């Protein structure tokens, strides 16, 4: 089957202080995960906005991960709090626009959670492999919605 050859493309937006460091720890602990993911480092999940996610899909990503510090652990005191509040609004908006929300994963991975990062990446990769390529998005793009 054609699907067997499908390798999902995943873009991750992670904060510098927690998840980026957590992913470093995965490395120092030599824990393995699948190599489909590309990490983009940001100061804080508060910096992530809808446009970034949109761009990633437009560029052909099959899935997006957004991960930062646990609530109350934000390096910037409340940046991720704002992010979370914004997500609640965005969630509705994205869904309304027809975005496949199964392809966006929000998570908290702290600097100490190297193993959690490995598990998260593997789960998301497997899941996206099941979902198949996000061809739907191009249709949305063409329709001028996204």
């Amino acid at each position, binding site marked *: 089957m054609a699907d067997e050859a499908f*390798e999902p*493309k995943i*873009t991750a937006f992670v904060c510098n202080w927690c998840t*980026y*460091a957590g*992913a*470093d*720890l*995965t*490395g*120092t602990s*030599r*824990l*393995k*995960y*699948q*190599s489909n993911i*590309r*990490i*983009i*480092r*940001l*100061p*804080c999940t*508060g*910096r*992530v*906005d809808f*446009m*970034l996610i949109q*761009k*990633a899909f437009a*560029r*052909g*990503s099959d899935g997006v991960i957004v991960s930062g510090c646990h609530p109350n652990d934000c*390096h*910037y*005191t*409340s*940046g991720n709090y*704002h*992010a979370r509040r*914004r997500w609640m609004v965005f969630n509705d908006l994205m869904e309304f626009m027809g975005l496949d929300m199964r392809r966006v994963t929000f998570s908290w991975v702290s600097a100490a959670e190297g193993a959690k990062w*490995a598990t998260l990446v593997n789960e998301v990769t497997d899941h996206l492999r099941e979902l198949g390529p996000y061809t739907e998005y191009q249709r949305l793009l063409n329709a001028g919605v996204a």
Partner: protein
Amino acid sequence: MSRLGVFVCHCGENIGATVDVTEVAERCKHMPGVAHAEDYKYLCSNPGQNKIKQAIEEHQLDGVVVAACSPRMHEPTFRRAVTDAGLNAYMCEVANLREHCSWVHEKADSTTEKAIDLVRLQVEKVKRNKPLDTIQVPITRSALVIGGGIAGIQAALDIADSGHKVIMVERSPALGGHMAQLSETFPTLDCSQCILTPRMVDVSRHPNITLLTYSEVEHVEGFIGNFKVAIRKRARMVDEDLCTGCGECLQKCPTKNVADSFNEGLSMRRAIYVPFAQAVPNIPVIDTENCRKFQGKKCDRCAKACPTKAIKFDQKDQIINVEVGAIVVATGYQVMGTERFPEYGYGTYPDVITGLQFERYASASGPTQGVIKRPSDGKEPETVVFLACSGSRDAAKGVKYCSKICCMYTAKHAMLLKHKNHHAKAYVFYMDIRSAGKNYDEFVRRAIEEDGVKYIRGRVSRIYEEDGKLIVKGADTLLGGEPVEIKADMVVLASAALPNHGQGELAQKLHVGTDPYGFVAEAHPKLRPVETTSAGIFLAGACQSPRDIPETVGQASAAAAKVTALLSRSHLAREPLVAEVNRKPAPQFSDCTGCLLCETACPYQAIGHEEIKDRNGNVLKTVAKINPGLCQGCGTCVSLCRTKAIDLHGYSNEQIFAEIMSL
């Protein structure tokens, strides 16, 4: 077109064994904008760094990507290296081939492909990097300490000893806070006044400290290194320069029936008073609410008595403006009053007192010269019941938290009672004995084992008066909840420690956060316990949460260390990764529409606004303005701004979009 250099590291086998490093370097050469690419065994070694420097010169590179370990590891190393070669530090980026690639994937083509992608991301980013300079914020090298309890005293002395100027603001007429009220202190039972007084004197004599008592902070603006503070120095109606502290005026004042707050209302003072004998400064103050003259009656006896004509009935409040680089909040706590306890009589039984009142009785300088008496008839009580956790750990009517100090001072009180009156009986009703601290549990055991204090595990349901005794109805949960009734002469409530009154208003003035109870919030509960959420404002002592003297002093010194570290430099160097609101030519001026949503979202209060005016001073537009001294670069405002008027240096929209598009 940029001329970039890419340097790919093997890290010995660490990267090299999994990723085909030479292939990566080879492929990079063909990326647009890349002028040079090479690989090397250990880039962080001196020869490795030299290679980079040489290449920059040789190939006239204007940007560098190092593909090696995590930037959290060696980004500073490589940024230093490129500056040595004359490039701006921020023209160097690191691709993480080790932690995010070679260590987490098996050797495979896909792994090498990923490595190339990771480099490409950074290449695209660096192309759009702009040279940035560290931000230099000038620092006013003096500090303000708010609150003159032991926390404030310690912090002020430490800062002043390091050579910096300190302005200390205390709202009561004298220094000392609650520690001045205490009798003897656990766990050593040394006399509180004896160890405190020398420090208060030190404060008043220190050449670097300006002491403003009977004063309060009126207004604060500015930011780290640059605070402007207005202080209201209230009129004490006594000229501080003329007064010699002789005390003649106090003797003559006919108003003798004012409840003495220093003695927790257990004695009376005059309308003109000095809070206590060792007060610093030893200058009286007229309590205008009780003074006859100020109540419209005829009296000037104090003025007549004063040999130096120091009494000035027409003195006015003064506003003093100061500039400081750092602020320490040390405003302490207050205790819950007996009126807050319905089942213990709403404060109507005079012999139900607070721990603080007990301290005044036990104090050699207190209203009874250290003899434990009871308020109703002045008799020495034979049976005293102490109630731990009064109002604390009481979600229903008090506060949820444990007040932390009361287990220890209750043991101390019971012990002091026994020491002063061997026949007296002391009972303590408690839920848990929380005595974690150096020599603390030993102290409590001593009260039980040597002084025979009876501890009963249970809370008290009710207290009422009968035949001149207080009937204390409790239960012993170690006997299965068996009711216990004690006929007591006096009951001492270990009443909860609360945020000081006025704490909320002060926090607002300072823009520092408070916790749900109203105590000042720390920046991080474990790793930044003496910093607040506002840069340059620190905290010390019981204003953060209830704590005892050793902890308060330790924390005050820690806050002082933070302040001196800040004030030791003339400028504050800050990473230039800050946000900025764009500017455009007139008539647009900026994409900003002035909605100021960003202002409310910024966790650091870094955003204000500015008015763009024409030559005649007419306001043309109001736009957001970010203070780079305060901005920490979190990017929250950027993602919030609907018109994309804000961008974040180092993580600009353009840079991130380019990264995404490179994939």
